[in-house]
């Protein structure tokens, strides 16, 4: 064996933060190799993928538009992951949030925006919560693993969405396309910056991240979540109810995913279609880990993964690469991130341990 792993015996603070950076660097190198294997000039491809999306006038605002749902979902997931509640079904909760809000938007298109918008936000949150309540109940009542239940419910949500847009909610004037009517302007979130698609949801995402940060680091609830995740017996010793915290984690995660779904269909998409998400709910898991399960870190993670979506689009147009390049980039990033996180608890050593004096 060339390299050995040696336990550090403690968390390395340095590597907690250096690991995502190393993972990013390794991902970029690997992406360059993939580009060159595909017969593209690697440097130019990297430029197209990572830099060019930001150079156009719409680039930066678009980055924030794409990052908003990732941050919203990522913050909610981070809080739950801290408590060892593994909600993998944010994609489904996002879909239900979108469906709930869309139902309202389609039923009352002419309601005044000042009422309709908040009502849609509430319904979006409730939709996500309702979907997350199923794994929460199954976990706390029957001890069913929430990883499986929440993940599988994602596919149920997707089928429900397809049923609605091809059946009862299909736009009669939509030439048979599986989609609802476009939402009214009252049901569209206000734009924050003129001439861009930067909508209210972007602001909401940043606010949620800041609130999430305060909750996690300063509040008693955040403390309870962290204790539950790090030492369940200590949580019990302190009298923190595990099932209450599981419910809370899933409600916060589901609610924020639902809110993200609502903003996405009401804002950038503008209607319900079978493809309202390019996998935001799953990508947000990477965002949460890249952001070290810290709400402020999630902002950075969200921006980086938003760039991978924009880069994927640019690569399709400029390099004639398939859309799959986005998924590959994200997958490699998660792969390296998990690998690099080993360095938090272990250090790499050469084949022969240095003689006395090495440690």
């Amino acid at each position, binding site marked *: 064996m060339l390299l050995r792993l040696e336990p550090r015996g403690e968390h390395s603070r340095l590597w907690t933060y250096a690991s995502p950076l190393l993972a990013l660097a390794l991902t970029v190198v690997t992406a360059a190799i993939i580009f060159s294997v595909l017969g593209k000039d690697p440097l130019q491809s990297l430029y197209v993928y990572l830099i060019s999306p930001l150079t156009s006038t719409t680039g930066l605002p678009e980055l924030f538009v794409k990052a908003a749902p990732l941050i919203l979902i990522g913050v909610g997931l981070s809080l739950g992951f801290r408590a060892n509640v593994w909600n993998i079904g944010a994609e489904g909760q996002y879909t239900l949030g979108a469906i709930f809000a869309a139902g309202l938007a389609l039923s009352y298109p002419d309601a005044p925006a000042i009422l309709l918008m908040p009502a849609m936000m509430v319904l979006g949150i409730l939709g996500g919560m309702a979907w997350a309540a199923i794994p929460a109940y199954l976990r706390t009542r029957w001890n069913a693993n929430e990883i499986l239940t929440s993940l599988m419910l994602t596919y149920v949500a997707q089928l429900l969405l397809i049923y609605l847009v091809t059946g009862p909610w299909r736009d009669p004037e939509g030439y048979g396309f599986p989609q609802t009517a476009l939402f009214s302007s009252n049901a569209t979130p206000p734009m924050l910056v003129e001439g861009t698609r930067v909508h209210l949801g972007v602001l909401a995402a940043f606010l949620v991240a800041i609130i999430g940060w305060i909750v996690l680091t300063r509040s*008693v609830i955040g403390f309870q979540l962290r204790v539950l995740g790090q030492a369940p017996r*200590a949580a019990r010793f302190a*009298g923190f109810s595990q099932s209450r915290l599981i419910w809370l984690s899933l409600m916060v995660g589901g609610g924020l995913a639902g809110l993200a779904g609502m903003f996405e269909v009401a804002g950038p998409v503008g209607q319900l279609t079978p493809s309202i998400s390019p996998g935001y709910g799953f990508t947000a898991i990477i965002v949460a880990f890249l952001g070290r399960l810290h709400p402020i870190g999630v902002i950075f993670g969200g921006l980086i993964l938003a760039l991978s979506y924009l880069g994927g689009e640019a690569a399709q147009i400029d390099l004639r690469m398939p859309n799959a390049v986005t998924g590959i980039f994200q997958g490699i990033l998660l792969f390296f991130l998990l690998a690099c996180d080993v360095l938090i608890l272990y250090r790499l050593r050469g084949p022969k341990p*240095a003689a006395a004096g090495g440690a």
Partner: protein
Amino acid sequence: MTGQAETTKATGTTVPLLSLTGIVKQFPGCLANDRVDLTVLPGEIHALLGENGAGKSTLVKIIYGVLKPDAGEIRWQGEPIVVQNPNHARRLGIGMVFQHFSLFETLTVAENIALGLTDAADRKGLRTRIAEISRSYGLHLDPDKAVHDLSVGERQRIEIVRCLLQKPKLLIMDEPTSVLTPQEVERLFETLRRLAKEGCAILYISHKLEEIRALCERATIMRLGKVVAHCDPRQETAKRLAEMMIGTALKAASHQARGEANGGPRLEVKTLNLKSEQQFGTDLKNVSLAVKGGEILGIGGIAGNGQAELMAALSGEMLAASPNAIVIDGTHAGKLGPRERRALGGCFVPEERNGHGAVSGMSLSENAFLSGHIRRALARNGLIDSGKTAGFADDVIKSFDVRTTGPSAEARSLSGGNLQKFLVGREVKQSPSVLVVSQPTWGVDAGAAAAIHQALMDLADSGTAVVVISQDLDEIFALADRIAVIAEGKLSQAIPIGEASVEQIGLLMGGMHGTSGGRDVASA
């Protein structure tokens, strides 16, 4: 192994089995070993004595290949060597039983032992060999039991058996007797003496001075990373040994208001029945007890006889079936959770420090908040008052002489004894009406143990009802006003400490379980 066995006891001409010269180990901010010399002869039982933080653990980790020294030389049977890792150490013939066990909770005893073996061929007939060793050395173990259901004492036996399977030439024991009954300790000593006679040297780390005097032939005493003395413990008094170790004269803990308690009980348990949540746990059967303010009740018993369940029932981690099964200061608390019980004045120190009493990855401040936030009002409007919390943690650190860099230090950075002082201090500083502590000094050095004992007595003197659940009888006899024994989930009647003898209690702990046995002895 056999060649070694023929080498007889320490003589001037014998090549030392192990000799360390000038070992230096520097940790950030702390020189753990400062030019330490140590010589262990074949077949001798050698004590390594020192307070927590004296550098004993660091030194044995260096011997066992867990840590690398920054400087110094290790010779094994005369040859200079570099111990690469624990595997290498085991191949050389060094076995170690750690103070904190490294066992997989979900696996069985046999599986855990199999995992520790480096050679696949060893696994054949493993179960028979486990059975053989546990029989011949008096270390009772069921190879098919899952570890998570075993007591600390039973877990320790796994570690010992695991070492013995390797037929070591040197066996390192880190605080081995803290969880054993007097009878078990005697049996362990027989085991160790027999091993020594067979030629296996034993490096014995303990703070129990009487044991060291009974068992060991030579002692090396460390303080603050340095070797301060060598002696023959059989020639020294326990007090003298302790003073060499601590560097100052010891004063015995004292408890003034003993037996002077007036008024009704502050903690009462009435015919409590509780099913254990663990598959091989012990159900509590008709447990009753009453403790007045100012009184210390000791609960003795062998590990795994319902102590964990009793602790959980008292702390509210497990709820009783009826509210009046547990009464704290006159309030029916049987169905109240830990937070409500704390509000009533109940404070608790569980047996396990890491992961139960404390979150090892959190700071001392956060750990102070964990159980102190209700009684010390450390939260405001759902937010943690970090200034007040750090102040509370700092108060605990100062009053209990916890050696650490401050409230922001992570719990895991503290040595076992220091963390225990912090956890006891955290509860004592909440001025509880009832304090229940389990194994207050397990794995803690003499200095810290004395400080903890004094704190518990002072607390009782101030009017608190104190319950000490301990497997260390000496501790109970030193602390308690009355003693009760738990065996198979039944609690004997409490006997005033002056009327109880070690033999009597030993009988209660062993065969004569149940309330009838308890009454017989109590009335005897």
